[in-house]
């Protein structure tokens, strides 16, 4: 569904990584690790088309990124759920409207009951009318997950989704992602939390990738 082929990217002329080849196929589950600044977030941004690779090619659902056009990219993004590290909410909208935002922005019908059910699923049923700035970090993270999955995306990308959560909530959120994956959603999670990866691995057939030395590698037995 999302394919990266010999992709290279960097900033201000300095290459962050190169020769990255990755396929996020149906029902796949990937963890992406690496030290801070290694390029995890950059790789995720490439995966939802926010960045254009300096070299190599990226295909979304069989179509080359460069050939998609603006509307094509928007339509591809409607099939990709993203949990951003900083959540990226519209602070003037209620939490409920923020969760429904991908449907509203995608000009699709908003099934109100589904939105309510989803908010209950992530434990935010009492916060429907709350504004994002009034929520705790953990609540925002869960709301971001709800927003990412409201469209039943084919691919879910999550950038440090448990960064603001306690261990119990992290495990719960991971189990939600595993549940989605079992329903066929491809999942890519960028995290530096190796304990979380170790906890998850027995439950799901996940590949663990690591960005090191400007290359994307399959992580070894050290995990």
């Amino acid at each position: 569904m999302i394919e990266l082929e010999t992709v290279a990217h960097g900033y201000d002329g300095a290459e962050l990584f190169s020769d990255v080849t990755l396929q996020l196929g149906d029902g796949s589950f990937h963890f992406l690790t690496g030290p801070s600044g290694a390029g995890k977030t950059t790789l995720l941004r490439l995966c939802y088309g926010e960045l254009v690779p300096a070299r190599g090619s990226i295909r979304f659902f069989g179509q080359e990124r460069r050939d998609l056009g603006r509307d094509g990219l928007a339509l591809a993004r409607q099939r990709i759920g993203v949990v951003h590290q900083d959540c990226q909410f519209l602070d003037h909208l209620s939490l409920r409207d923020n969760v429904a935002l991908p449907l509203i922005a995608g000009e699709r019908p908003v099934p109100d009951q589904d939105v309510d059910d989803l908010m209950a699923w992530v434990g935010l049923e009492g916060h429907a009318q709350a504004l994002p700035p009034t929520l705790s970090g953990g609540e925002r993270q869960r709301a971001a997950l709800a927003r990412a999955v409201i469209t039943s995306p084919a691919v879910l990308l999550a950038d440090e989704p448990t960064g603001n959560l306690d261990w119990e909530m992290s495990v719960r959120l991971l189990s939600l992602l595993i549940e989605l994956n079992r329903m066929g959603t491809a999942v890519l999670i960028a995290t530096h939390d190796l304990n979380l990866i170790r906890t998850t691995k027995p439950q799901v057939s996940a590949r663990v990738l690591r960005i090191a030395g400007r290359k994307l590698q399959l992580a070894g037995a050290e995990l």
Partner: protein
Amino acid sequence: MSARDPRRDPRALRVVPPAGQSAWLTLLIAGAMAFLCVFALALSVAADRLAARWGEALSRTATVRISAPATQMDEQTAIVLEVLRTTPGVASARVIPVEEQGALLEPWFGPDLPLDLLALPRLVEVTEAPEGFDSMGLRLRLAAEAPGAVLDDHTRWRRPLVEAAARLRALAALSMALIGGATAAMVTLAASASLAANAQVIGVLRLVGARDRFIARAFVRRFTLRALIGAAFGTAAGMGALLAMPDAGESGGLLSGLGFAGLEWLYPLAVPPLAAVVAWAATRAAAFRVLRGVT
């Protein structure tokens, strides 16, 4: 499970935060420009009406000026009157009395002008029938039968008036075009400021899969509505100001005619929708220009 029609979902319009300075700026600009536009429109209509009135008054009459020695004046006058009587298209002809000529000259020479000492030409006022007369033919007949008589059909007076009116109309049209252009420029500025202030909102909307037209629509609707409301107030104020103009009567000329009459009052009602169209086009262009810079 209830699902709202996405095209009617009010949340689609709320994705852009409300208010901000650009809202007041757009209302104010649209109001002020509509107010000015109503006056430009009134000027155009007044110029048109005045030119038509002057032109009609002048085109219905002509003058025959008879310059002849005093001994031949009465004879030449009689010939001219006879020629005019037998000319098709002439409704009536009358000799303007000396006292009336004096009244015509009084504004320039004062009331004490000794008319009897001056060798004034005799003037015959000719009133045209609706079908009009052949001025060239009449000139030739007068030249043949009364050599001292000259026909003045007021063409040389009428032409500058018509030209002046046409220029006034063109000036009014230019003013309206400038007002439209200035409105578009200022709405573009206000929309660009609003788009810049909402860069984070636009970025989030793009990331969750919004197409450019969806994002643009949220801004365009808002600015179009503001322009419509502002222009409606400005137009109402402009029409009110025209109604409140003091009546200077016929002597007021253009000043007293600055306004609308009858169905002409419907003309300014087109200003608010036009302002809305200008705002729609300006905001749409600004929005798509900004969106091209956002992935």
